[in-house]
């Protein structure tokens, strides 16, 4: 087995040729690559393995049950899947255009100094711990929304399904906004780096054909940077879907399906964080692990879909940034 692998990698040949450095490099590269794969699979296995009692108990129906009753030992995932998807979706909807817009402004329009300084600040923002965002959400954002935003927002959107009902400070909506602000620096900082890496000659090529700066950006810079920008979005989405602390603080942790974003809810991550200390008994803990597994699969599939999406929409067979 090992020798078969070695011959596949041309290791022996390289060693015979005295190509020692190459052989070592190859072994290391494969080792770390496989190591990463191993960790991922190991985590998946652990989540699933620990979730087995819950699977035995509830079967696949776990996914669409909205039961969450520790007393009766009944658990389901649907409302938390809903919470995760809705908060992640809203925050991406807001953060993607704003973040890419900030990056585009910094790279294409702002003077070099502004670009450098603001770029640095944005990278700093990306490093603030999420609990700080959560606190800020409770003590600043939620009261602000209640006093200044609600009075005019509700009359405008209150009739739209999903936006009905009373406006609460601790709500899915507030959590989504906090998430937006959390992932905005991620989107902006990575997009900025990606846009900056677009070669000068690509910009000049489009300008020399008689393009405006906007056309240059949309027809030469963006297509070139698309793979990287989608990578930034995928990373941000992963962060939004998996964010625990800030969301747990602000979303209200209502363990039911919500019909309005102004209502309270819970996400998979927040319900795990909110319950692991009380979790006693096999099925309870096991259900939390199973929820973790669902979250894992959820982010994984969102990423795969995003990847397929770029492949389907990219015009040329080459993707200069190599996807993500």
């Amino acid at each position, binding site marked *: 087995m090992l020798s078969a692998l070695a011959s596949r990698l041309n290791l022996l040949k390289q060693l015979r040729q005295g190509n020692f450095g190459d052989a070592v490099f190859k072994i290391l590269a494969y080792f770390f690559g496989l190591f990463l794969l191993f960790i991922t699979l190991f985590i998946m296995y652990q989540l699933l393995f620990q979730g087995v009692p819950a699977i035995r108990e509830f079967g696949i129906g776990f996914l669409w049950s909205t039961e969450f009753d520790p007393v009766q030992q009944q658990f389901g995932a649907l409302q938390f899947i809903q919470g995760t998807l809705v908060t992640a979706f809203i925050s991406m909807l807001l953060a993607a255009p704003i973040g890419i817009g900030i990056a585009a402004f910094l790279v294409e329009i702002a003077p070099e100094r502004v670009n450098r300084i603001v770029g640095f600040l944005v990278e700093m923002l990306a490093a603030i711990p999420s609990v700080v965002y959560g606190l800020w959400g409770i003590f600043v954002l939620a009261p602000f929304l209640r006093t200044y935003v609600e009075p005019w927002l509700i009359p405008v959107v209150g009739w739209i399904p999903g936006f009905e009902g009373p406006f609460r400070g601790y709500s899915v909506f507030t959590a989504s906004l906090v998430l937006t602000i959390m992932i905005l620096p991620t989107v902006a900082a990575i997009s900025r780096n990606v846009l900056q890496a677009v070669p000068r000659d690509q910009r*000049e090529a489009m300008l020399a*054909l008689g393009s*405006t700066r906007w056309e240059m950006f949309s*027809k030469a810079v963006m297509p070139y940077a698309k793979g990287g920008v989608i990578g930034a979005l995928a990373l941000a989405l992963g962060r939004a879907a998996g964010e625990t602390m800030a969301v747990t603080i602000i979303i209200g942790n209502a363990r039911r399906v919500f019909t309005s974003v102004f209502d309270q809810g819970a996400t998979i991550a927040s319900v795990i964080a909110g319950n692991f200390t009380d979790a006693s008994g096999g099925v309870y803990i096991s259900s939390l692990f199973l929820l973790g597994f669902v979250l894992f699969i959820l982010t994984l599939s969102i990423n795969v879909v995003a990847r397929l999406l770029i492949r389907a929409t990219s015009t040329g067979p*080459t993707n200069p940034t190599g996807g993500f």
Partner: protein
Amino acid sequence: MERNKTKEQTSKEKATPKKQESQTGQRQAEAPMEHTAQSMEVNGLNAYYGGFKAITDIGMKIAPNKVTALIGPSGCGKSTFIRTLNRMHEVARGGRVEGEVLLDGEDIYGKNVDPVQVRRKIGMVFQKPNPFPTMTIYDNVVAGLKLQKRHKKGELDDIVEGSLRQSALWDEVKNKLNDSGMSLSGGQQQRLCIARTLAVEPEVILLDEPASALDPMSTMKIEDAMLELKKRYTIVIVTHNMQQASRASDYTGFFFIEDMGEPGQLWEFAETEKIFTRPERKETEDYVTGRFG
């Protein structure tokens, strides 16, 4: 011999009418390739990068339907100069220009002149081939056209074929127009960039060392294409290749820098034949005969 033969063949192909389906699009393939292009004139031109003056007091008349070659040692400001001719210089950081550059008598640096319009009339091909990597060969050629008004598909097809023929690339890519522009060799990529520039039908084409990264065969093809192109366009080309300058150009400008840190100057400008056989200044002679540079 070989080269003449292939040229004959391509010109014969050009003469035979090809597609019949569209009427309007025939212009590139059938209409005479000849056209009186616009001339340019440069007066008292200085160009800066921030506080650094890169070229000083350049004056030059660029004749229509001729090839004007710019030669000179490295760093003497040839690229800077050629980029001032279509307002690409101001894209560089700190890029600033004084003096005037006339296109058919009108200053392209005039107050109400839009650089976007200037660049539509004065196209540019860069030193390093820079096709758009996410686009197909076809889309690369029409990239500039798509910035302008809408064209019908048949019309675009004809322009693509016409431009690729003019840049001597058609035969090599006609069966793979939907492949990526990056699938081509360096020389082919450069001819693709030329085709892209031709497709928008500018008046003047600026080429900054278009063949410096290419093999002799590709260089030859680009030169041949240039001889055809000057029937239709005014051409300015920067080159380090003396043979290329003497073979393919009608006028030659020699740029020179007297001392390190000084701005580059247009040291001598005349018919190519004169520059290469009877230059007036010693530095020009030294340079064209390869004694330094």
